[in-house]
């Protein structure tokens, strides 16, 4: 099945010129890829510090080490495009443009957070920029994202969905149902599979008897490729090509990005299950210095620029943290809101008691 290309509004269209994967990227794009990686790293390291300082209760799932994938896969999305994040994609908000203040309000579980303090730190959506509020249930956001793509197709929009999941997530039934349905319906969705070798403590080879997870695309009649998930340029190019294709109606793509998470599954996991030397190997493949070398070769990088960027990020983060820590917690009784489109406060808070009445005679 193929579909006619989607027709979007004209101000969308001019941004959607065909992406040429062979052409070199422009300086601006390269710089953006780099600075976003740096920002993601800076934000997440700060969150981790806050956690160790005991400044918020809860937990955090960082993608430190995976920035090339996080950034390359989601940069240059339009506001209308949807992102379906998993627990490890908090930095998606940076890519999409959610204000840092709101992100930190979420970390601190304040009323000002996009979900008013409901979800744990790992899970955060933002409706104005079409970031799906994920459940914790693995693959759930991917399935919902598939539905958004279905709507985009029905509404003949050019918007796409980028849905992220880990290699562990591929084992779950709903992951399969999502990709299979996207394949049948040729939906405008790009599945980013972050293969970071581990699902909590479980190694990839106990998830599936395949080496490259992108082969799974074949089961769905879908294009599938594996890229070096620590090479931000490679990820960006692969993602852009898939996104462009999806906008044109050629259907979904599965992109496996091979990468690595530096820290434990979450902040409470010392990650003792990893073989000796593995972390060191991957640290030597840190995507940020790699990109610095790449840019330096092309004369686009200077340490002074990096320091400027860092200073700016730190300032922005400080402000956001100050805002968040000063901002109030929700009221306890707010827990009763947003269950339905109507309020249940009255029903839950006031229970009337019935007294006997004289029966009416018939």
């Amino acid at each position, binding site marked *: 099945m193929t579909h006619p290309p989607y027709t979007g509004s004209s101000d969308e269209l001019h941004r959607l010129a065909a992406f040429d994967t062979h052409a070199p990227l422009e300086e601006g794009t390269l710089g953006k890829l780099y600075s976003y990686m740096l920002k993601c790293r800076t934000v997440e390291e700060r969150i981790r510090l806050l956690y160790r300082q005991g400044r918020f209760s809860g937990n955090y799932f960082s993608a430190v080490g995976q920035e090339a994938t996080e950034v390359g896969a989601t940069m240059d999305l339009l506001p209308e495009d*949807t992102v379906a994040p998993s627990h490890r994609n908090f930095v998606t908000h940076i890519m999409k443009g959610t204000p840092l203040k709101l992100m930190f309000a979420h970390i601190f579980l304040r009323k000002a957070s*996009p*979900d*008013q303090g*409901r*979800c744990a730190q790992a*899970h955060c*959506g933002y*409706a104005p920029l079409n970031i*799906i*509020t994920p*459940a914790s*249930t693995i693959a*759930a956001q991917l*399935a*919902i*994202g*598939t*539905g*958004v*793509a*279905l*709507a*985009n197709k*029905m*509404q003949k929009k050019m918007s796409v969905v980028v849905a992220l999941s880990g290699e562990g997530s591929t084992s779950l*039934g*709903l992951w399969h*149902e*999502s990709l*299979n*349905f996207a394949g*049948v319906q040729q939906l405008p969705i790009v599945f980013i599979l972050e293969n970071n070798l581990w699902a909590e403590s479980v190694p990839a080879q106990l998830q599936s008897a395949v080496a490259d997870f992108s082969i799974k695309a074949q089961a769905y009649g879908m294009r599938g490729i594996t890229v070096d998930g620590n090479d931000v340029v490679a990820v960006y190019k692969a993602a852009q090509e898939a996104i462009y294709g999806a906008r044109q109606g050629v259907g979904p793509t599965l992109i496996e990005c091979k990468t690595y998470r530096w820290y434990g599954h979450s902040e409470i996991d010392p990650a003792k299950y990893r073989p000796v030397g593995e972390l060191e190997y991957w640290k030597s493949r840190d995507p940020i210095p790699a990109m610095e070398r790449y840019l330096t070769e092309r004369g686009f990088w200077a340490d002074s620029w990096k320091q400027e960027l860092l200073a700016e990020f730190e300032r922005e983060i400080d402000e956001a943290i100050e805002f968040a820590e000063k901002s109030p917690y929700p009221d306890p009784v707010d827990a009763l*809101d*947003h*269950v*339905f*489109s109507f309020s*249940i406060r009255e*029903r839950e808070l006031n*229970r*009337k*008691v*019935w*007294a*006997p*009445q004289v*029966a*009416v*005679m*018939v």
Partner: protein
Amino acid sequence: MAVMTYIDAITSALREEMARDERVFMIGEDIGAMGGVFKATKGLQEEFGSARVIDSPLAEGIIISSSIGAAMAGMRPVPEIQFADFIAPAMDSIVEQAAKLRYRSAGTQTCPLTVRVCYGGGVGGGLYHSQTNTSWFIHTPGLIVVAPSSPYDAKGLLKAAIRNDDPVLFFEHKKLYRSVKEEVPAEDYTIPLMKAAVKRKGSDVTAISHGYMLQLTLQAAEKMHKEQGAEVEVIDLRTLAPLDKDTFLESVARTSRAVVVHEANRTLGIGAEISAIIAEEAFDCLDAPIARVTGPDIPAVPASPPLENFYMPSVERIVAALERTLEY
């Protein structure tokens, strides 16, 4: 006005809502070319095209989850689960996603969808084509659970469900599809969700039921009237969650006696909640124990006729419970 079966009422509600609102679409197994295993969607794919009446892969999880996503993005999906017995593969999608999306996004992301589910026994379907598993969803805040007992209600409630902004589970009893007929207005109408109906007035005892069992309860009430002159007030819950408790509490406050009738197995069937509400909020009104007439606590409705008959609550059993309660 036309006399309609329950299933025709559903088909016409679907057709009218699809025509009224182009955001409404349907997805499910065999709902397209075949018009559904019970023909509830007959003719709709021809009329509205295969993009709006989607024959899905055999995968209940994505039927529901893709509906959630589509709803979030502005559509009004009406997915179908072919049999309640096959809803479990969609459990996560319904209970963890649909029911909680509004809540977890503090009202900024919502999923107005209406899941049609065919349920219930009495047609010889056996263990996996007869189940009543409404309780899982009644227990899940964030879901509206509807279970109409008649054609008129079915049409009005289905339209209300589709127009409502919350996820609704709409349970259609397969035994009612062709066994009950009723006058149904030609004009557009809706019936408010979360409102029970007094289907028969009475002053001696309150019988609370819904779905196919409501029809048997009405027959039992008629029998009590004819044979013993007892006046049974019959309340049709119509919506099972959130419950309209005022309607039955007001009735029990008058009659002082209550009998609950449902098809789901006894333990934590809807009857448990109704009893508990009455025992807590209308305790002083009660002159007799609250009786429950329900399916037995066995895993499902077996196929062999004597076993199925053993499972299904009958007019006789309802009458016996009403008598016991009245005589107390």
